[in-house]
């Protein structure tokens, strides 16, 4: 019997039918079947990618001069300084730490550094941000983090099969929305949620992202993308807490993914990665872009 899945309903069914330990094992079995690679090879490759994620985060955290953004203000080092100084927080420390790493990865990305798209480059900060912060806070071994990344991939595969990660097609809901909901399932796994609860966390977090415009300044993956990865982190943590407390998603995950498709069809192309609407056409966005272009011209002259 094939272990491939294209819906959350099927994924959960496979887990109970085969007595899998959880989503991670189900995803591993499907990947073995799809690619012919062994479990060891797959887990080793996940490990490699997690290391690249950590390298990306660490590149810019202590040194704002490494940030080569065009219009966005360097932010990761400010968060790091604030955490080190112990300033009073309203959010939990783990959320703010995950914010730090998420924003750091995105600053590395905007500086043409090497990152792992998860599932896209514009949303590459959320998964590593949460994984690094969870590992640090709860002393989680690498192997367990690698399994959590498999869980996130499982949710991502369902979205890819039924919708899209392309913001040009579906707006930012397809990027930050997908990433945040994949990450919610991964955090759920690390936090001891059942597979059903993890899928609930994914459904709740994606619901909250439906309709999100892709309207970055000058089309650059900077404003609002970098800090929005920070908000994607908070969204994921909140969804996991809700699911852990027994809250349910009235609309099942697979139908939320369908809803994302439907919302995409109702989105004007001005807010689908063309920089022709939303934040991109505000007076300040135009000014920031012009200032950058003038600076670039002066450098080239």
């Amino acid at each position, binding site marked *: 019997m094939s272990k491939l899945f294209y819906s959350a309903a099927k994924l959960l069914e496979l887990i109970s039918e085969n007595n899998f330990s959880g989503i991670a094992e189900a*995803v591993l079995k499907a990947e073995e079947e799809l690619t012919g690679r062994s479990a060891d090879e797959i887990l080793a490759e996940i490990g490699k990618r997690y290391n690249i994620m950590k390298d990306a985060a660490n590149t810019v955290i202590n040194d704002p001069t490494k940030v080569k953004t065009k219009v966005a203000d360097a932010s990761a080092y400010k968060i790091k300084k604030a955490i080190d100084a112990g300033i009073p927080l309203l959010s939990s420390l783990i959320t703010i730490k995950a914010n730090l790493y998420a924003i750091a990865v995105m600053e590395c990305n905007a500086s*043409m550094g090497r990152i792992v798209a998860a*599932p896209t480059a514009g949303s590459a900060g959320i*998964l590593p941000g949460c994984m690094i912060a969870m590992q640090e806070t709860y002393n989680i071994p690498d192997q367990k983090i690698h399994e959590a990344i498999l869980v996130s991939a499982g949710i991502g595969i369902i979205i890819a099969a039924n919708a899209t990660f*392309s913001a*040009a097609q579906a707006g930012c809901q397809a990027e930050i929305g997908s990433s945040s909901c994949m990450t919610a399932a991964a955090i759920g796994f690390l936090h001891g949620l059942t597979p059903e609860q993890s899928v609930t966390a994914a459904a709740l977090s994606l619901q909250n992202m439906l309709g999100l415009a892709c309207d970055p300044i000058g*089309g650059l*993956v900077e404003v609002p993308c970098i800090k929005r990865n920070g908000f994607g982190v908070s969204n994921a943590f909140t969804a996991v807490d809700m699911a852990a407390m027994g809250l349910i998603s009235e609309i099942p995950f697979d139908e939320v993914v369908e809803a994302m498709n439907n919302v995409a069809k109702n989105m004007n192309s001005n807010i689908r990665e063309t920089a022709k609407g939303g934040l991109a056409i505000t007076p300040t966005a135009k000014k920031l872009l012009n200032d950058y272009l003038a600076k670039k011209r002066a450098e080239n002259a």
Partner: protein
Amino acid sequence: MSISWSVFDVIGPVMIGPSSSHTAGACRLGYMAQAINGKFKKVDIYLHGSFAEVYEGHCTDVAIVAGVLQMDSFDKRLEKSFELAKEKEIEYNIIPTDLGEGLHPNTVKLVFDDNETRSVTGSSIGGGKAVINFIGKIPVSISLEHSTLLIHFGHGIIKPKEVIDKVNSLSKNIVNITTGQYKDYSILTIEVREWFTPADLAQIEAIEGVNWTKFINHLSNFVNIED
């Protein structure tokens, strides 16, 4: 063509920023286009839709040129692709345009050495994945998830079934076969789990009506980083 999503397509690609669709996917399109075309001295790169609108900020142009120079999306030389092209004496032109209705918003057409009939048009479909949709005006569906054999033939001279029968007689482990047609010409796209040797290709090219063949190795989604 079979598009399947592996764990490493979702948690990946490993890539140089800033955009998976506009940088990594663009690089992949450039790579696939040159693989389909073969050696060249000049390439005209026509950017369509969102590619035409925001290519500068996403380094889409730089990434496509990196791809046609056979770089992977994680290659740290990617941002220097324009300089590398000049070193290799390869001429490139970046042309934002409108390629018409009904195309994916992230589409590019590459014309090598002014040969329009062998132009390669493809789309970056999100998360770094990409698909070639046209060779010249012939619709195709090429993702290089599997190694792929392309056979261009005039179907006034030979029927697709006869070409397929010949390919089947070589007893390869075939995953999928698709046909695309424009006017009197067709391209067979044959995805396989093994190799076609130069001798195999010579046998196919010997068939009357077959104009050209091209065998392209699949693109792995495992990273092989050496630096």
